[in-house]
């Protein structure tokens, strides 16, 4: 009895575990350039996972999530530069402020649906970007306008969230991603997750059952903003520079959304999977052709989006996991009765 249970646990998960191990171990043994790609994979995976919490579960398309990313980056960096506060503390303050801002924004926005919601989030993103680019000071705080915030290199200091080698950054990011995935999983398997699924599939029916639409949407929004603000802090500390033109840009928002959508919205691991697929391709291609062909990686994102919507509306998650499960059964030759139920029947 005991043995069968253990086989059941590993069955269908071999490749998933392998994938996680690759993400955990391999960056130790590769060159710095490849490490950078791994960091980008996890960074975008993190952002996409956070986006997924609100948009994948609620079903509204936010194309302005870079705003919250930027908020996280700006607040923690300003606290470090002007208040000499360690980013490890600052990122929690930033997260709380960002979550509060997300709720304030979400309150009117969640009254809108479909294209109206998407357009409002675009407008919000552009509004914040232009505002930050054109203002040197807000409420007496020096946000330095379009120049952005430049963090000085001071060397290897844990307390200042600054490390000498990429690999340490990478493992910090692994921790962030692990927490986000855990939070996503907890949400999905909690009452909140069930409420959100109900709201996504039929808002009217959900409301008639006594689910308070706005309340649960806002809770999801607050969690999403809270988490993505950590990604923002990481961005600032890793790149040592926060420029409004990049971090608040429409491209950034769309990139985050596309990665999550290609990966599989509403799933726990989908957005990370999307990042694992898209980021290496685009990084490789822009390294090969980037100099001669600017915009190549965004072109790939666009094409992928079209293909995914046409042929895999639920994202690649189901297909990829299905493929690996089938492969696993072929390799290990596990019993055929299970194979049908796990390999193909997932819908």
């Amino acid at each position, binding site marked *: 009895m005991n043995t069968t249970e253990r086989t059941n646990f590993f069955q269908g998960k071999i490749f998933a575990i392998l994938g996680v191990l690759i993400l955990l171990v391999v960056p130790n043994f590769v060159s710095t350039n490849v490490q950078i790609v791994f960091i980008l994979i996890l960074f975008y995976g993190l952002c996409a996972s956070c986006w997924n919490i609100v948009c994948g579960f609620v079903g509204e398309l936010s194309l302005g999530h870079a705003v919250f990313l930027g908020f996280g980056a700006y607040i923690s960096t300003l606290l470090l530069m002007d208040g000499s506060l360690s980013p490890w503390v600052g990122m929690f303050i930033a997260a709380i402020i960002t979550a509060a801002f997300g709720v304030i924004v979400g309150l009117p926005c969640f009254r809108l649906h479909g294209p109206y919601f998407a357009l409002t989030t675009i*407008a919000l993103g552009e509004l914040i970007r*232009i505002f930050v680019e054109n203002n040197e000071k807000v409420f007496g705080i020096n946000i330095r306008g379009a120049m952005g915030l430049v963090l000085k290199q001071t060397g290897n200091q844990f307390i200042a969230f600054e490390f000498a080698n990429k690999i340490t950054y990478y493992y910090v990011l692994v921790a962030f991603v692990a927490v986000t995935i855990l939070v996503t999983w907890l949400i999905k398997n909690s009452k909140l997750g069930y409420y959100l699924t109900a709201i996504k599939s039929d808002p009217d029916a959900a409301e008639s059952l006594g689910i308070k639409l706005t309340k649960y949407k806002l809770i999801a929004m607050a969690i999403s903003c809270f988490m993505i603000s950590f990604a923002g802090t990481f961005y600032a500390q890793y790149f040592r520079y926060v420029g409004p033109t990049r971090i608040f840009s429409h491209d950034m928002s769309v990139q985050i959304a596309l990665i999550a959508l290609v990966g599989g919205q509403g799933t726990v691991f989908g957005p990370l999977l999307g990042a694992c697929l898209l980021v290496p391709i685009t990084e490789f291609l822009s390294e090969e052709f980037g100099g001669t062909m600017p915009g190549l990686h965004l072109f790939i994102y666009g094409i992928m989006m079209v293909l995914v919507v046409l042929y895999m509306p639920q994202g690649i998650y189901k297909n990829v996991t299905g493929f690996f499960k089938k492969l696993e059964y072929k390799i290990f030759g596990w019993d055929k009765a299970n194979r049908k139920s796990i390999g193909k029947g997932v819908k």
Partner: protein
Amino acid sequence: MLDSVLLAFIYGILQGGAYGAIALGLSVIFGVTRVTNFAHGAMLMLSTFLYYELYTRFGIDPYLGLLIVTPILYFLGMATQKRLITPLLKKERGTTQDPASLLLITLGLGYAINNLFMMIYGSDYKTIPTAASKSYLTIEVGDFLFTTQWARIIAFFAAFVIGITLWFIINKTELGKRIRAVSQNRDAAAICGVDVYKTYAIAFGLGIAAVAVAGACLSEYYFVQPQVGTLFGTKSFLIVVLGGLGSIPGAILGGLIFGVVESVGAQFITSSASSMLTFILFMIMLFLKPSGLLGKGGKV
């Protein structure tokens, strides 16, 4: 001061006409097919590059190039609808509605087109130095001096020409009757023997053809550059929502309001900050009256 505000107002009206011209196609597409075409800006950019190529290679003025480019884009629009959107609509029937996929596919398409042109042409700013862009209209009354390119004035009137043409097609022709039927009730129209998907394709084509005409007027005085699409695409969305999604006069009215707010606003704050005003205006409008100034729900 008053003079400069008046001048800004006139410039704003002219620019607003061009905005309206661009937004018209978007409005028609949404009104008929309920598709929020996020690739609209990309189509505009694509058309301006076609005019640019025609001008540099064959010396054809964009106003003349209209005759070549508009049909091309009409068929491009039809193909987009047929190949990308119709399959999604067919899939949706019977099962749960997922309007997000329609939005996403156009978003992806727009991104692909924009960055394809970025890859081919780079981000250099190009201009088409035609006669209309180099000749100026000057009005002088005492101290008051008003100068503008003829191309801008033509773009302003083009908005009304495009608007009236579209209105005529939709309200006065047999084809328009079908378009209106489909936009009001897809299934009922299908029962009456209207080929719904073909009508959708025609409406989509019309919308894209309209943006090609606007692109000709725009390329006469504005830069030809891959980012142009994103810039005007976002603006036309705000304009269309402001005026009322699906309303033809609404698109022009929204464009004019946008142009004036931007231009007059730039007199008081910096010009890049004044585009913030338009975003704020848009958001206030959405929260107060999401159907827009002239929007009436399901009517084109």
